């Protein structure tokens, strides 16, 4: 990813808007762009979803492999979560090994899902010490207009929740649904023009400072946090966005559960 020069004019414009409690696309500070969620969209995946937030579009696909359990955990399978942002999704992305940015992206989404415990790795055991399922969740960006993190997190959990373990194809029993206990969800906030906003667009990201990602579980428990990029924030600021995240994750969870 090539680093653009800091666009000073954009920053100045965003600051002026923020001072008047406005955003560049007319939204309020805590408003999301339009959110669309589709599932069962990928014929070759065992579970899949497509998420669109404004002009940001991503896919998630679940595949399964058979692995040998680790020696010290003979009854456990594994979960692997991999995020790719290829040149398809935006002019700033370049082919080649993953940048530090996309490594962070994948790891933050991974931690939110993994740490919530929604995938019980003990349930993935086929033959103790010999065979277990490895769940592979692939997150793939089609169009990046900002806030890939939340789009990936939503697509990821939706794809997992519909995934079928292809036991018959691997000749180890009958197909069954992957157990998923809970719906961890991420809300991301970006400091733009001196204040945090929810669901920043690409232009807001470009002219903004730090971002904070919060993943909350069904009961409002915290499963993952991440502060990224240059910037300083206070305890009060954090408390405010945590409050919003508690509300917003509930709303999104309802949408997902009603799919």
């Amino acid at each position, binding site marked *: 990813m*090539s680093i653009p020069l800091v666009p000073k004019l954009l920053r100045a414009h965003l600051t002026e808007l923020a001072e008047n409690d406005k955003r560049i696309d007319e939204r309020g500070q805590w408003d999301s762009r339009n959110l669309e969620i589709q599932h069962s969209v*990928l*014929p*070759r*995946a065992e579970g*899949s979803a497509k998420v669109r937030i404004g*002009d940001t*579009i991503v*896919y998630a*696909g*679940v*595949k399964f*492999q058979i692995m040998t359990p680790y020696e010290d955990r003979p009854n456990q399978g594994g979960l692997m979560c*991999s995020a*790719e942002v*290829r*040149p*398809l*999704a*935006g*002019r700033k992305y370049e*082919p080649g090994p993953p940048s530090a940015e996309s490594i962070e992206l994948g790891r933050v989404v991974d931690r939110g899902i993994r740490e919530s415990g929604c995938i019980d790795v003990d349930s993935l055991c086929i033959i103790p010490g010999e065979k277990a399922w490895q769940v*592979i969740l*692939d997150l*793939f960006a*089609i*169009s*990046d*207009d900002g806030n890939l993190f939340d789009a990936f997190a939503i697509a990821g959990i939706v794809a997992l929740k519909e995934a079928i373990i292809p036991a018959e*194809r691997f000749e180890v029993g009958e197909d069954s649904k992957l157990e998923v206990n809970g719906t961890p969800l991420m809300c991301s906030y970006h400091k733009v023009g001196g204040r945090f906003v929810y669901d920043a667009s*690409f232009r807001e990201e470009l002219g903004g400072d730090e971002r904070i990602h919060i993943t909350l579980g069904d009961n409002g428990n915290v499963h993952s946090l991440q502060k990224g990029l240059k910037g300083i924030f206070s305890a009060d600021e954090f408390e405010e966005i945590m409050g919003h995240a508690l509300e917003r994750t509930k709303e999104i969870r309802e949408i997902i559960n009603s799919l």
Partner: protein
Amino acid sequence: MGGYGDVIMIDENGKRMDGRGPADLREISIETGVVPVADGSCRMIWGTNEAIVSVYGPMEAHPRKIQRQDSAVLAVEYNMAPFSTTDRMRPGFNRRSKEISKVTKDALESVVLLELYPRSKIQVNIEIISAEAGTRCVGLTAASVALADAGIPMTDLVVSVASGKINDIVVCDLNKEEDNYGEADLPMGILPNTGELVFLQMDGNLSQEEFKQAWDYNMDAASRVHEIMKKALIGGDGK
């Protein structure tokens, strides 16, 4: 090609397993503008193949050493998404994808008017989201639509189709099972207005007669696909 085997893939009436006749194509649909942040884009569904292509540019070519004084450079990335295949496709370097990227670039460079944009770069990204057999043809065809959607001047669109051989019979547009057990595959990239070629590969085993039959099937199919491409570009939904 996967080799002969005893699998019967075409019955005595010339009907294939999915009900098609020898010269029939799978179902095709095309939609443009599917990558909102790109300068041009296209989704092509062909059987259960799905390719998404985005085009960025013409834009400044950097680093400067890749610039050409008298024309644009065209960069093509063909890639298969990890969930596009039955067995997960591991991300990262892949010799097959590298070769397909190159021959696709060679084909597109033959029609794009690169000399109109000296020192600039046009980036074409082909992602196979779902793979069924013939992904290189879908990718190349969709790329030419995405270039047109981006308003990049070309001498012609490129239509890419493949014919092959199953059970010693030449048929058009192999599906997955036919590709796995078939005996030959001949993908071509055709300029629909002149019948000339910009892309050609083949592997397997074809007699000279079979080869001519497969060639003719491809030529014929190209004009049918061309109609769908044109509809998608003038605003229809490509069905």
